[in-house]
């Protein structure tokens, strides 16, 4: 790990230690949770929002590597802020746009004043963003987007659409006319279904169009998957650490339950699983940085890290015993956080199929 990454990791750990409190998330099961805007602004002040923005858009020139450091730490603490959805992915997308609108959005993103979120998905278990049904006509958007995270009333939606010539990405105010929204509790936050009926776009023009839009969306999804994989691995490692603490302290039959061989072996298997997950997303990160042919590595990582986080979560509940089934114990919040991240940006099943398809293609070349 380089110096900048180590510094980021330490400052994230400090921040979470002081400012993150899981009890805030208790007592509201099933209610869509808004983003904690005060915390979000603090993250902006720390310089964490929009890390991937290029210097031309006022960014720091840092990249996905630094973001995965943060994402992994956020996972370890089950931190609810939608970092991947509302910071990393919009920043990667905007880095492809050169319009004045993009500069304005980049500034809002970095300061933490507004939440930007990408609305690309139109059906369940979708992997690719290159053929939206939502349409742009005469500066207005019509269509439907689903499972959109981090939608706030005053937020900005980056919507994939097709216009007369092909693919485009436009910005829309979340409270603009013609937007109907339904929120659902998901993970530790919320996702929304959005309907657009002749909704006016911001800045009077698309942010991205044609091949640039396609490449930008692909890179954005790729980057999001890598960072989400790191976050999922962090989530799993965090749950394992909590479980190890618990079994070392919990006494039954006159001894710590962590002294039983059956607990030893279960924990070892989870440890090995977490190590594989780490190796997998670090490989995906290198592949992403390499620029080309990253698809197989990224799909392998997303599948591995999602499966691993959920496996550790389920076993962690079991090893916490009855206490693990209560809302009082933090472990269940981790498991719930994992439920959303598990499927978002593609389920393990779809990603493993994509991994196999790319591998098979590579073999035939």
């Amino acid at each position, binding site marked *: 790990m380089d110096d900048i990454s180590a510094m980021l990791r330490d400052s994230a750990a400090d921040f979470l230690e002081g400012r993150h409190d899981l009890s805030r998330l208790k007592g509201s099961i099933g209610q869509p949770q808004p983003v904690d805007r005060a915390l979000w602004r603090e993250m902006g002040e720390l310089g964490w929002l929009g890390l991937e923005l290029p210097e031309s858009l006022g960014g720091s020139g840092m990249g996905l590597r630094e973001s995965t450091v943060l994402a992994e730490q956020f996972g370890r603490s089950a931190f609810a802020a939608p970092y991947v959805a509302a910071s990393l992915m919009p920043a990667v997308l905007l880095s492809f746009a050169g319009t004045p609108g993009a500069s304005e959005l980049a500034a809002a993103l970095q300061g933490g004043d507004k939440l930007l979120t990408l609305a690309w998905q139109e059906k369940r278990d979708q992997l690719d963003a290159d053929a939206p049904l939502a349409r742009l006509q005469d500066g207005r958007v019509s269509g439907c987007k689903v499972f959109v995270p981090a939608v706030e009333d005053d937020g900005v939606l980056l919507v994939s659409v097709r216009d007369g010539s092909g693919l485009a990405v436009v910005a829309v105010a979340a409270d603009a006319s013609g937007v109907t929204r339904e929120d659902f509790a998901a993970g530790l936050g919320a996702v929304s279904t959005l309907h657009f009926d002749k909704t006016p776009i911001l800045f009077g023009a698309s942010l991205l169009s044609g091949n640039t839009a396609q490449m930008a969306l692909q890179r954005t999804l790729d980057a999001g998957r890598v960072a989400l994989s790191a976050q999922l691995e962090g989530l799993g490692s965090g749950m394992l650490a909590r479980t190890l603490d618990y079994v070392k302290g919990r006494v039954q039959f006159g001894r710590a339950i962590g002294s039983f061989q059956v607990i030893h072996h279960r924990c070892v298997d989870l440890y090995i699983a977490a190590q*594989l997950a780490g190796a997998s997303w670090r490989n995906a990160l290198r592949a992403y940085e390499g620029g080309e042919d990253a698809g197989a590595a990224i799909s392998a990582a997303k599948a591995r890290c999602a499966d691993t986080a959920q496996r550790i979560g389920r076993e962690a509940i079991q090893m916490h015993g009855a206490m693990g089934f209560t809302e009082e114990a933090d472990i269940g919040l981790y498991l719930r956080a994992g439920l959303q991240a598990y499927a978002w940006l593609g389920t393990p099943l779809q990603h493993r199929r994509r991994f*196999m398809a790319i591998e098979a293609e590579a073999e035939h070349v």
Partner: protein
Amino acid sequence: MSEPAHPDRLSDEQFRERFRAWLAANYPAELKQDSHRPFRRLRGDAAVAWLRRVRQAGWRAPAWPREYGGMGLSFRKQLIYHEELEHAGVARIIDLGETQLGPTLIQCGSEAQKAHYLPRILSCEDVWCQGYSEPGAGSDLASLRTSAVREGEAFIVNGQKIWTTHATDSTHIFTLVRTGKFAKKQQGISFLLIDLATPGITVRPIVNLAGEDEFCEVFFDNVRVPAAQLVGELDQGWTVAKALLGYERIWIGSPALAGKALELARTLVEELALTNDAGVMDRLAQLAADLHDYRLLYAEICDSIADGGKPGPDVSMLKVYASELLHRLTEFNQEVAAESGGIVGDARIGGALTDLHWQFMMARPVTIFAGANEIQRDILAKTVLGLPAEASARN
């Protein structure tokens, strides 16, 4: 062509290319690992013949220092060496003289022992097997009871070793024997070199589940071993034997065997026309992804050692994961083949001739030998996760 001389002066990639070219030109095609025998091994005369050819060309003993006749490769180049053996389909050879005894002697042996034995290992004049396990000392190796009692200038050895791989192909055995009784059972064990031609030794092969007689029992009845055959200090053999454990676990954790089994799996689903069966293909995708990610973890750990680290206790996880992945792969192969998976011996599946019974059975012991996986998990729980020891467990 392809002289390996001065591998230090070659870049890693140049080294890889040279070794690859040499193997392609020299390894006999009929001895390659293939879908018929994905884990093919060479033993006896075939192994010796190949190793002598390797030696002649200067590719023998990649890990040994050059002053002892090895190649003195960096750890990184050793990794490449092993990758290229795998890539070329070179059959595995259990050459414990090179991989275990040699490095042990180099570290702990006397000058006389090194001068006498090391050249003979390289030339295959001596072929070594390992005498550690006993009927009453398997996973609990420190309970071993084969005794060596000092009598003048010799030790008198009595007892029995078991699971001694390839003893019938070997000329010598390196053993752990009990030379003293102490409170801690790991003490009082000594490391002793024994010529299998010594009077009083009987070797009896044991046939395994794959139908091969590679295991043996070795009986010692008042066997007289010169005292100069002791390696290291008297009663300190446990430390001598443990010195190499970390590296051994790294090589045992190699993804190579699982890689061969996955190649066979890919061949089988093609030949069995199962590529449109989503259930089968999803299972195969899981296995392929498991191997893909395991290779990455293996490479990360090997890289950290190549960068100057030492193998830590966490290398135990490599053996655990690789061996269980090999189980799952060979089970997949046997299951998708349906009735052909029940054939004991060669079966023709489409265009492929393969012995599924053999690959399935040969994967079984990998989770058992060199410290059963349960023991490896005990080690990991204690040393890596810091979990408290079991109340009933004795050291």
